[in-house]
Each structure stands twice: as structure tokens, then as C-alpha cells.
């Protein structure tokens, strides 16, 4: 493999609240090749969207600290000036389809006005030309061209989702971050969007970070999978390895909960609740819910005390298979 398109190196992102510091992302590292699709998976609240926001450098107001490095094409983009990041990377190289992208459109502007803005700002294209490009892109995502003149409230949820995707692609970015692009949609629309994403990836040679809490859905698209738990990465590897032989007990649990039929799933199988990110458990954050920890005496005093290191386990896929669990030491 050549140089990675994106290297995320030990990033931390903390929020300050009246109750304390929320360690939403607490030391996460992974890499992404050009053309690769990484699925970022985990339960609700584990920090997936926060990573996405860190990648485009748009965190919430009450952020308390952001540390680590995010190297894009080898350059640390976390530490360049706001202005440079805005002009050089935003939308041009890194585009983003936010979670609940129903709300990603400004209700008082037409679709066209919102889509052409990046073209006008970054490529200095004149308005009419830009509108033509917007219409082409809408067509590419399977929408009628005249949608440019419509307002968001005149579109259905699925249409808005497609518009959000079309808007993300308008500058042909290197990397597209898709934050749960299908979670609010019905099953049929969900399937359509997934097919669209596959087609677009092929057509435009896109690199995706696909964020979801649904492992089965991720399997349709992902080349590699990163599993998060309570602000940390617990397992990362090629899809082939993760789906065939998941190593981390949490991943195994997630897999176990995947029903054969697609649909809205809840991870109710796993006893216990996601831990607090203000005072996370010491050692392995999963230990209060881990079946192995509960059943194996020798893990007591280890898992609940010391943080497990990342362990390189045997892999068949293109990527290394890393797992953070004392079972494999």
C-alpha cells in the first residue's frame, strides 16, 4: 500500500459540561487508504459523530480540548490555521453528510442555492454554470433536475438524504464522511441509498468513512471496520477478518445481535448500559458488561485495573487486525 489518505493519530476530544469533562473521544487512531471504505461502528453515544466532527474541525461550542494529529495526505490538518483549513480542505477535500441530514438543509434557501455555494466559493464558478453542475449531481443521485428550485420542506426524507449526498459530492472531495446516512429512513429507502452509495463510489472513486451502529449494514460497504466503545477504539481490521472472526468480546456481542432481516435494531441483548464518559471505568471500559470478565476468575484485577494494549492478531485481509483486549495477550 502507498501513503494513507488519512491517518488519525491518538486523538482526544473532550467536552466540558456542568457535570464534568465528557471524554467523548479518548485516544483513537486509525488509517484510511484512498478508495477504501472504513465503517465506524458502535453503540449510540460512543463518540462516532464526535470523530466525524473532529475530522472537519467543527466541534461543539463547549469543547474543552482537542489533541492528537489528523494527517490528511500526510499533512497535519488539525494544527493548521482555521482559514487555511476552510479554504483548502473543507468540502474541497473532506465533505460531510451529517447524522440526521434531514436537518442539514437550510429551510429558507432553495436546494440549488445551497448546493452551488461551495462551487462559487472554492471554484469561483459563475452561478448559472454552478446550477447546471448541481443539476447534474442531483441527477447522479437519482433526483429530478428541477429540484434545484425547491425548498427543503417540499422534499421527502429520502430525497433530502440524497440531496445531502449530492451536495457532499459537488466538489468531488477525496473523502466523504457519512454519518448514519440511512438511520432515519424506512427499509426500502435505506436499501436504495446504500445502492446509490455503492454506485457513486464506483463512479467517482470515492473514499468513505461510513458511520453506523449497524454492523450488518456496514458489511455491505466496508473494506475495513473500526469498532468503538465508550470513546475508544476496541477493534480495527479488514472486513473479512472482523466479520469472519471477530475478536473483541464487544464486537462478538454486536455480531450476535445482528438479526438476519434488516431493520431498525436495538442492542438490547447486551446487559448493562453504556458507561459514563465523565468517569469511565478504569482498565478496560467494557469490563462491567464483559461476559469473559464475569466468568473467568483470572481476569479479575487485570481488566478492571489496567488498560488493555492493542494487540496485533492474525489477519487474512489487507489490514492489520488490532484488538484491545486482555484475552489475546
Amino acid at each position, binding site marked *: 500500500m502507498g501513503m494513507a489518505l488519512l491517518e488519525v493519530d491518538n486523538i482526544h476530544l473532550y467536552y466540558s459540561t456542568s457535570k464534568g469533562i465528557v471524554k467523548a473521544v479518548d485516544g483513537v487512531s486509525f488509517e484510511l487508504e484512498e478508495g477504501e471504505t472504513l465503517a465506524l461502528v458502535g453503540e449510540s453515544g460512543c463518540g462516532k459523530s464526535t470523530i466525524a466532527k473532529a475530522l472537519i474541525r467543527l466541534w461543539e461550542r463547549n469543547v474543552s480540548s482537542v489533541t492528537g494529529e489528523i494527517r490528511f495526505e500526510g499533512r497535519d490538518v488539525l494544527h493548521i490555521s482555521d482559514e487555511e483549513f*476552510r479554504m483548502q480542505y473543507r468540502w474541497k477535500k473532506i465533505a460531510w453528510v451529517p447524522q440526521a441530514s434531514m436537518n442539514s*438543509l*437550510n*429551510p429558507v434557501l432553495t436546494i440549488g442555492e445551497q448546493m452551488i*455555494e461551495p462551487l462559487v*466559493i*472554492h471554484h469561483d464558478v459563475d452561478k448559472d454554470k454552478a446550477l447546471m453542475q448541481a443539476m447534474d449531481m442531483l441527477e447522479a443521485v437519482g433526483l429530478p433536475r428541477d429540484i434545484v428550485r425547491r425548498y427543503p*420542506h417540499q422534499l421527502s426524507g429520502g430525497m433530502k438524504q440524497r440531496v445531502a449526498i449530492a451536495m457532499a459530492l459537488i466538489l468531488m472531495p477525496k473523502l466523504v464522511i457519512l454519518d448514519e446516512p440511512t438511520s432515519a429512513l424506512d427499509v426500502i429507502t435505506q436499501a436504495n441509498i446504500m445502492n446509490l452509495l455503492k454506485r457513486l463510489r464506483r463512479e467517482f472513486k470515492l473514499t468513505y468513512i461510513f458511520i453506523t451502529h449497524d454492523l450488518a449494514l456496514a458489511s455491505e460497504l466496508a473494506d475495513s471496520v473500526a469498532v468503538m466503545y465508550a470513546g475508544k477504539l476496541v477493534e480495527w481490521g479488514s472486513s473479512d477478518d472482523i466479520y469472519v472472526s471477530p475478536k473483541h468480546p464487544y464486537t462478538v456481542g454486536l455480531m450476535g445481535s445482528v438479526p438476519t432481516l434488516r431493520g431498525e435494531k436495538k442492542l438490547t441483548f447486551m446487559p448493562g448500559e453504556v458507561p459514563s464518559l465523565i468517569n469511565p471505568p478504569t482498565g478496560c471500559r467494557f469490563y462491567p458488561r464483559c461476559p469473559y470478565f464475569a466468568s473467568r476468575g483470572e481476569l479479575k484485577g487485570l481488566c478492571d485495573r489496567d488498560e488493555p494494549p492493542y494487540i496485533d492478531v492474525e489477519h487474512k485481509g489487507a489490514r492489520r487486525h488490532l484488538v484491545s483486549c486482555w484475552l489475546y495477550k
Partner: protein
Amino acid sequence: MGLLRSLGFRAINLVLILIVVLFIISYALSGPASSVLENQVKIEARAVAQAVLKHNPNAASQAQQVYNTIVAQLEKAYGLDQPPIIRTFYIMWDMLSFNWGYSFFPQNYGVSNGKVVNIIASALPGTIILDTLGILLSAIIGIYVGTRSALRYGSLSDRGVMYYAAVSNGLPQWWIGIVFIIVFAVMLREVHSPIYFPFGGILDPKYFGTWLVNPAAVFANVSAVLNLLWHLILPLLTVLIVNIGGWAYFARTVVLNVAQEDFVTVARAKGLSENQVVNKYIIRPAAPAILTSILITIPFVLFGGFLVTEVVFQWWGLGYVYNIAITAAGTPDTPVVVALTYASTLLYIVIVFILEILYIMLDPRVREQ
């Protein structure tokens, strides 16, 4: 098409309000307060009889006869010989057709012939000037201040604006007017300041006579207009001090909420500059919501605020005339009070309608379909 429909819908709603208000007043007048109406009839009849006497001082019996017939006619016209509910509709009709009768105490208003319509017509321009300028300026300044403050959420100036808005919401606007008069009219005079403001009034006496009969003539005269503006300063300042806070508060809340919307983050992610984000993605989507929240408080702002402020400044407008009608004669001048209620409701509804048109124009969710 959609635009016209929603406008029509709102217009119907407002007309409904007007009719409800009208009905309530008319019903009250027709039943419990019908003696008021009888009084009214006698005053009108007497006016005619006196006109007859003026013409021919010797025709006393003729005048009496005229008086009797007119009373009979008017009682019929007002439906005083009808059951209360029918009478209610007679009164409603009179109101709607601006047939508002005569003041009990016409000398208190200085408007010739004591016709209520004339009295109110003379007061309307004053109210319109103060209300329009007051609402427009406080909206512009308030929205500006509120937006700035929301964008500097948590800063010292933001807190300042917050507290100012909170306090100003609790200030009786008319009392601020009183304070201003004491400070800028009374005290400035006492300390022999070269500049001091008038105690009140809408114009100096030399122009006021013209204003009562023909306000347009006043506007043709530059020095009279300057005089009007001079009198306007304190009332307008009062209105602004209190109302800017309200607008700023609503603007701030709405902008804070809008600023957390995903589309704002997307706009930033698209690489828009902060200015563009603020103008296109925060203020514009916030505008309709700011307007709606203000719409709810408009009755309070207009009536509890503007009208009573007129009283303090003796500003010749609906509110001041209200005050005269209620207190000047010891007993209330009911025909004027009733007509004023109707007229001010009418004015209020026009203002609300204008704001709603604005709202519809600003919000495509209402405008398009």
C-alpha cells in the same frame, strides 16, 4: 397561489378576532349597559333639536317635536325597541359602518361637533406615527443586538444584553416615560440646562389646532414637522428603551437555537465564511421565528405599552384620548371608550396583518404551499 391562500387564511382569522371583539362589546352594550345607548340617543336628538332652535329661536315646541321624533327614530335605528340579541347586531352594524355617535363631553377633546368618529380620526395619526416608528426601530435595533449577543454567547456583553432584556421586559413602559419627563423635562429645566424637552404633547399649541383638523397640513410645514419630531424624541426613546429588550431577547433565543441546527454546521463545513454563515444560515432562518414570537407579545406591546405611554406624554393618540374619555369628566365618556376599543383593535389587527405578511414572505414553508 399558496401565498394568497395563506394570506387569505390569516386575514379571515383576524377578521374573526375583530368580529369576536365587536360582538363582545356590542353584547355588553346591548344588555347590561343599554342605558348608555339611550343616553346616546338623547344626546344626538338634542343636538338636532338645538340646531333647529338656533335656526329659529321661537320654535320651542317644534324643536321638542323634532326631538321626540328623532328619539323614536334613533331608538328604532339602534334597535332599542328590540330584544338584546337583535340589538347587539344593530350595534355591531353601527360600529362596522363607523357610525359611532357623539361624545358625552365633547368639550374635553377640542374636536368640533363632538362626533366620536372625528375625535378618533384626529387621534389616529399620532398613534400611527409613534407605533410605526417605535416598532420598526426597536425591531431593527433589537434584532441586531440580540443576534450579536447570541453569537457571543456567554461573553460579558451577552450577559449584559440578557439582563437588560430581562429587566426591560419587566419595566412598565409608561413609567419609564414618567421618569424621562422628570429627568429630561423637569430636572433639565431646574438646572437651567440650555436644552430641555417638552413636558409632553404632540406639537406646540400654535400647530396643534391644525393637527386636530388636518394633520396633512402640518406635514407640509417644515418647522411644524421639526416641532413634531422634537416632541417625539422622549416618547420614542421610552418606547425604544423598553421594546428593544424584548426583540433582542427573542432574537437571541431564536438565533441560539438556530445556531445549533445541523445546517449551520454544514454551512461551515462547506467552507462558507463566518459572515456568510451568520447572514444566510442563522439570521435568515431565524427571522420568521423571531417574528412569530414577537407576534404573540404584540397586543401587550401595543396596548399595555404604547397606548399608556401616550397618556404619560399627553401624546394626541388613541391612548391619550382613552385617558381623557375615562378620567377627564369624572364619569367615563362611554361612546368614546367603546369606539376607541373598536378602533384600537382595528389598528392592532392591521399591524398584526402587516407583520404576518412579512412573516409569510420570510418563510418559504408557509409561502410555498
